[in-house]
């Protein structure tokens, strides 16, 4: 399968990339790790006349701290996320998620920015970013702006990114030290998209009550879902069985999965509930130090 023809551009700065994209309008598209876009081009689901490769822009790489935040360059690969000691210590949810994405070869090239920005509901990082309440830093010809991950996703492959804008970095305030985390993903095999998946972070008080929490869901609607009602139910609780059951029901209620080879909508909704229950249990256990 050979992709359609295109002109290749490899700018060395964000400014040059934005300039190129402004000139191309609808005829330009950015190339990050390429592991979503190149398969789509082979299938003729995408045929951009101009590809702007972000691989030569060093400003888009790396993991840094800024005040209390961790800022991850959009071109940072999944492999680099997994290898980061800083992230492993401060936001272990990211490593746990990356290890469940695709396979080693894909993770060497696939980027965090590509995963969160292309709007594929099957991607795992968008729900994780909603769970972590991440902020996306975006640059375009009219300047820079920030968008909350929880406000970013509008539909399958539709996001708040305007034409000509580039996602430059993902900014995350790490959850409090001692927090619990979990990404539970049901999939048919390694490399598959989720049948359903749930991300959880939570903090627990000494009394065993949940101090703060966030729950988000992958691949059970046209967009990733922040399960706000389910989150509210567990905050202040001791995660007793009745509360967990209510939270699972609340999470299931916001799903609208497609029917595909991964299962019927009813099955995938139920599996989303199962993933929420398991992720809550694991996150709570980790918050207790287990």
């Amino acid at each position, binding site marked *: 399968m*050979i992709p359609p*023809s295109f*002109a290749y551009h490899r700018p060395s700065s964000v400014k040059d990339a934005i300039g190129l994209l402004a000139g191309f309008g609808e005829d330009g598209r950015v190339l990050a790790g390429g592991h979503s876009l*190149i*398969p789509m081009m082979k299938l003729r689901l995408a045929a951009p006349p101009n590809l702007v490769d972000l*691989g030569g822009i060093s400003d888009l790489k790396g993991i840094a701290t800024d005040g209390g935040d961790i800022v991850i360059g959009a071109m940072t690969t999944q492999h680099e996320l997994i290898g980061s000691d800083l992230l492993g210590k401060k936001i272990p949810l990211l490593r746990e998620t990356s290890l469940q994405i*695709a396979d*080693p*070869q894909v993770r060497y090239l696939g980027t965090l920015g590509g995963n969160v920005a292309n709007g594929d509901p099957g991607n795992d990082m968008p729900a994780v970013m909603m769970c972590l309440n991440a902020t996306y830093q975006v640059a375009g010809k009219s300047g820079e702006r920030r968008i909350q991950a929880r406000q970013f996703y509008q539909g399958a492959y539709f996001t708040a990114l305007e034409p000509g804008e580039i996602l430059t970095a993902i900014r995350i305030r790490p959850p409090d030290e001692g927090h619990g985390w979990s990404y539970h993903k049901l999939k048919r095999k390694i490399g598959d998209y989720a049948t359903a998946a749930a991300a959880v972070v939570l903090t627990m008080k000494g009394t065993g009550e949940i101090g703060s929490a966030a729950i988000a869901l992958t691949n059970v609607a046209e967009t990733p879902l922040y399960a706000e009602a389910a989150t509210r139910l567990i905050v202040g609780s001791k995660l007793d069985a009745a509360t967990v059951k209510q939270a699972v029901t609340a999470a299931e209620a916001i799903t609208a999965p497609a029917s595909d080879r991964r299962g019927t909508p009813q099955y995938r909704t139920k599996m989303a509930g199962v993933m929420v229950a398991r992720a809550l249990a694991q996150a709570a256990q980790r918050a207790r130090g287990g």
Partner: protein
Amino acid sequence: MAKSQIALTVNGESVDALVEPRTLLIHFLREQLNLTGPHIGCETSHCGACTVDLDGKSVKSCTVFAVQANGADIRTIEGMANADGTLHVIQEAFREMHGLQCGFCTPGMITRAWRLLQENPNPGESEIRYGISGNLCRCTGYQNIVRAIQYAAAKLNGVPFQEAAE
């Protein structure tokens, strides 16, 4: 479409070439450089038959444009054997442990195993299985591939290969 000039290193040799931007790395290697060791399998970045090493990373060369490899250092299965022509330890291990049947996945498997063993010189069985999870084999059931990589790891570490107890 205008062709792009690329310069890269493949199996230790400098290569200058003109490529169409849409040319995939696997097609460039096979058709322009006649390196037909990396295979075209699924063409959808699932099977790993096209795996090559690019700047210290195992990549599926069906999902990389040749222009993206400009300046890169690439190794394919053709660059795996020792300088005197004898087999690399991993190649020898696949032969000794019957780590292949039809051989279609083998160039990708060995190239991937080579990188895996550099990152983790002494992997456990589950780490090996996870490490090669991007490479599909439809013949062996993986059992002997895992044994081959264990054998290669032992040899590279200078310790005797010991079969795990059943």
